[in-house]
């Protein structure tokens, strides 16, 4: 649905050139929710704006829905943009238009007649749950409601793609959740391709099928949400993941004397990550029964990534050296992600 081929963007200024986006290749398929995560200044804004050519790439090709946008004239490009909706961090609604008129705006631009516009706008008001607010002005709405208007406006011309530029960054967690629910819902209902950029891992975790991590204008890692989450390759990705995966050890453990190596009588501290089906296996009881060790559960958490359960368990294994070793081997065999944090004496 969306294809970037060697897309680059360099800004020229008096103080020299800034390469905001280096040769980037990306393929996003239809119906997918694709996330781009990066810190501010990493180039994610530039990347998303290259997709609808709000930023003109200085090199490479942008192909959307089979058409090469980079080869189009301005008038053709404007037509093509009607196929690509966009929502923004600060909503960017027209302050002097009501909710209804804001949603009608893109249709007015296309020259649609008033009755047709009404037929399009009314169901959209329903979809985003703002029927009772249609005559309100943006200043009278909350942040979440404004973003709902933004979404309805972006959907008005029946686009195949929705670009979300930090769409939830200005919202509180609760509202973020409801906006993400709405995005998930329209993704399913309308088979809409969604591309979102964010610096919030929580957002990506909640709804993305695939994710790209961007740093200094380069996509440094790309994969399914699940792969990225369970098997991050780069330090930046790990950093992002740690922001939602509670890796901080509890105070008591953190302050306890711990060594990297096994010492006589010390107990290994192990973090287990359960993914999908394995989250249901009776692991701990097997450990205790079969390997003759004591297991002390220190911390446990279960979460989900895009509806797949994902659990973390922090345990302390106590027993004699051989038993502990075989027990850890057993855990390794279970294809779990396990990590020995250290040995507590």
């Amino acid at each position: 649905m969306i294809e970037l081929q060697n897309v680059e963007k360099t800004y020229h200024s008096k103080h020299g050139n800034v390469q905001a986006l280096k040769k980037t290749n990306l393929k996003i398929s239809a119906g997918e929710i694709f996330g781009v995560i990066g810190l501010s200044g990493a180039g994610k804004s530039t990347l998303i704006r290259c997709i609808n050519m709000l930023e003109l790439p200085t090199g490479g090709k942008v192909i959307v829905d089979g058409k090469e946008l980079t080869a189009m004239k301005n008038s053709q490009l404007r037509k093509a943009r009607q196929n690509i909706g966009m929502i923004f961090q600060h909503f960017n609604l027209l302050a002097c238009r009501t909710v209804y008129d804001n949603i009608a705006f893109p249709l007015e631009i296309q020259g649609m007649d008033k009755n047709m516009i009404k037929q399009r706008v009314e169901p959209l008001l329903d979809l985003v749950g703002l029927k009772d607010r249609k005559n309100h002005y943006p200043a009278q709405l909350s942040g979440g409601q404004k973003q709902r208007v933004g979404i309805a406006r972006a959907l008005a011309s029946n686009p195949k793609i929705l670009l979300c530029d930090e769409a939830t960054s200005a919202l509180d967690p609760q509202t973020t959740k409801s906006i993400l629910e709405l995005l998930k819902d329209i993704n399913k209902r309308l088979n809409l391709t969604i591309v979102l950029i964010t610096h919030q891992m929580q957002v990506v975790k909640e709804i993305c099928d695939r994710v790209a991590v961007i740093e200094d204008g380069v996509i440094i890692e790309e994969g399914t949400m699940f792969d990225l989450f369970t098997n991050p390759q780069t330090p930046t990705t790990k950093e992002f993941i740690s922001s939602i995966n509670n890796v901080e050890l509890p105070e008591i453990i953190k302050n306890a004397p711990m060594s990297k190596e096994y010492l006589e009588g010390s107990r290994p501290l192990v973090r287990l990550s359960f993914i999908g089906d394995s989250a249901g296996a009776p692991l701990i009881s097997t450990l205790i029964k079969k390997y003759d060790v004591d297991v002390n559960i220190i911390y446990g958490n279960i979460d989900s990534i895009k509806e797949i359960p994902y659990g973390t368990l922090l345990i302390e294994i106590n027993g004699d050296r051989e038993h502990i070793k075989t027990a850890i081997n057993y855990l390794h065999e279970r294809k779990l992600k396990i990590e020995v944090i250290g040995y507590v004496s």
Partner: protein
Amino acid sequence: MSPEILNLLLKSFWETCYMVAASAILATLVGMPLGIILTVTSKGHIWENKSINAILGAIVNATRSTPFIILMVAIIPLTRIIVGSSIGTTAAIVPLTISAAPFIARIIESSLLEIDPGVIEASQSMGASPMQIILKVLLPEAMHSIVLGVTLAIISLIGYSAMAGALGGGGLGDLAIRYGYQRFRMDIMIATVVILIAQVQIVQSLGNYISSKLNKNKM
């Protein structure tokens, strides 16, 4: 106050109204497109064009820095071509318009530049053409602020119109100078000043009212 004086006051009042209204309308008609062009050709805007912006900006600045009384005399030939005479109330409209138009252009420019670039970007993302952005986004969104600016221009036109008396333009200011000042008629002086104050008050209040009706930024 004798009926002749009252008549004189009334006549001068209407002359002022006529000069100010006509030149305000004409100056807005000239200043509006100028202001729009100054805005859209500015750096990073929808029709960025350095040379047009620089040339237009220089013309506007030159006109604005010429004192009104000098401008008025300097363009007498032009006034004669347009109106057919360089003396009289109608003739005064030409220099008033020419001095107010660049002022209004700058006021409109600054109102339009206040529009959040994000809103323009959003319109572009929907496929709006530059013309649609001007007509459907920039002007409506800035209208409340433009109204306040034009109000300001009208009030300074009321002040300038007094100077138009030098061209036999008539009006309240002229009356105040000729009767109030030169003939020591304190009563006429006070009457004209009171009317001028009332005029300014009414224009300002009306401007504030219309602007606040158009402003949807508040709750």
